[in-house]
């Protein structure tokens, strides 16, 4: 879409667009280009010069079983985060949708966790499950379950996934709630007259009508779990135990800043870049579809 009426001149618009172009150039395009460039080199151990190696960094990465394991970890993590955040949100939205009185108050209460930073959420959940002082881990202990996410990789994964999903429930709730509110009343009533019970109405009418929202949230939550959960993982497990909670973004950080392996870290950035690109394409394809819907 284009404007019919425009102003004349070319210097003014160039000046107007300049701040954004300059900032994007310096802090976005140049670093992104550097990441691609550096991924083709291996710096010498003293960091004085680097040697062109072509795609060797990538070959090395994909032959590294720790890096390949990171893909699996990321997949498990993002599936868990998506499920843990979407199912409770849908459940709460369905309940809130049935209530006329009080739903405003409930909504206010439910959007709180969205404002809590992932890193702070990590600290809160770490506190509950801390092996020494945690309340939840203590009560689990009295039930005979010995919680120790510091040693047990599965428990560590569960904990970071729940802590990451927690704040997202608010976000998903808002979208599900808005979608439920826009389901036509007449359709629901017609089904009710035909004798369909609540759950039957839910699965045959409401859920299919929610599918655009659900798909949208699916993509958005996967993107979230890939890129915005760094704070949760860093505060709770620092990627451990034995890398069992090291997701792709975390590894870029730990190889690049902790391990100082710039070539490998850059190659990982490039791989992530491709992943983001794919996710963006999926998202845009979907938005086009939603317009038709």
């Amino acid at each position, binding site marked *: 879409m284009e404007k019919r009426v425009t102003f004349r001149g070319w210097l003014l618009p160039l000046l107007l667009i300049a701040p954004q172009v300059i900032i994007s150039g310096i802090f976005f*395009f140049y670093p992104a280009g550097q990441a691609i460039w550096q991924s083709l080199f291996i710096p010498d151990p003293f960091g004085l010069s680097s040697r062109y190696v072509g795609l060797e960094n990538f070959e090395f990465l994909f032959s590294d079983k720790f890096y390949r394991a990171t893909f699996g970890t990321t997949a498990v993590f993002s599936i868990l985060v998506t499920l843990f955040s979407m199912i*409770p949100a849908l459940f709460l939205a369905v309940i809130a949708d049935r209530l006329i009185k009080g739903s405003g108050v409930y909504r206010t209460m439910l959007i709180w966790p969205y404002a809590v930073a992932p890193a702070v959420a990590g600290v809160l959940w770490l506190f509950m499950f801390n092996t020494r002082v945690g*309340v939840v881990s203590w009560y689990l202990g009295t039930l005979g379950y010995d919680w120790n996410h510091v040693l047990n990789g599965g428990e560590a994964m569960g904990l970071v996934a729940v802590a990451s999903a927690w704040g997202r429930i608010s976000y998903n709730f808002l979208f599900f709630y808005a979608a439920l509110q826009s389901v036509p009343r007449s359709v629901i009533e017609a089904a009710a007259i035909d004798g369909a019970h609540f759950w039957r109405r839910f699965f045959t009418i409401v859920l299919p009508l929610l599918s655009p929202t659900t798909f949208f949230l699916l993509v958005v939550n996967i993107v979230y779990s890939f890129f915005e959960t760094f704070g949760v993982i860093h505060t709770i497990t620092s990627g451990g135990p034995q890398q069992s909670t090291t997701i792709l973004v975390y590894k870029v950080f730990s190889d690049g800043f902790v391990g100082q392996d710039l070539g490998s870290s850059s190659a990982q950035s490039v791989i992530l870049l491709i992943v983001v690109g794919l996710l963006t394409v999926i998202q845009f394809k979907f938005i086009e579809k939603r317009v038709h819907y």
Partner: protein
Amino acid sequence: MANELQGMVEKRGAGLWLTHVFMIIGILVIFFPIWLAFVASTVTQAEIVSPPMPLVPGDQFWENYSAALFSGVNVPVSTMLFNSLIMAMGIAIGKIAISLLSAFAIVYFRFPCRTMFFWMIFLTLMLPVEVRIVPTYEVVAGFGMLNSYGGLIFPLIASATATFLFRQFFLTIPDELAEAARVDGARPMRFFWDIVIPMSRTNIAALFVILFIYGWNQYLWPLLITTDPEMNTIVMGIKQMFPSGDDVADWPVIMATSILAMIPPVIVVVSMQKLFIRGLVDSEK
């Protein structure tokens, strides 16, 4: 008839109460971590390290919060709160300002390389800062912007979401307004200030809420570039308060800091709920 129908669709009586009960249970479960953090911020360290800790607030509220605010662990929390405020405001205002200008240029002018710039900005949508941390760090270090507000703010405003939002909105402004402005001989910037900005007020406010929270809640970037505790933001500073090794963490002060870290964004979200929801829906479109 209408009443009967309503009875079928909306719960009444026992069912209604059950629905409320489910809702309240759900909210309690979701609230529990925050409640526990609040309780922990009002009791003594001794009460926490001998589990189970109490589940109702104690009487150490002022002690713990003043200890956090005025002495902290590495640096007073009040300093970190101030840094976070500058960073969040800088990101929100900076991003809105540059986006309004560039969206106005793209929508209301035809100039050389317009399409190229448009796609250039569009590309920045795709790459979160987490992906390009190492080279961005090098750029910021090269400018000598480590441990500075500029270093905290600039890399995070290099993204196009806001530009797209404003572009979409400007396209809906009726052409007649620009036409009238042109006939009256108004200069473009006059049109921008007198017509476009006032009309965008709600969008600007909604976006401000979203960007403020985005900026406030940043973790990885401040972690990398603020090595000086005086420049720490509160969200990344909490982790720095944990001792390394086997020392026991000062839980009451850490939890008081966590509560302080969530108060500003929670106030923004709850008090501007309508704008927040609007901003959320708009920025994801």
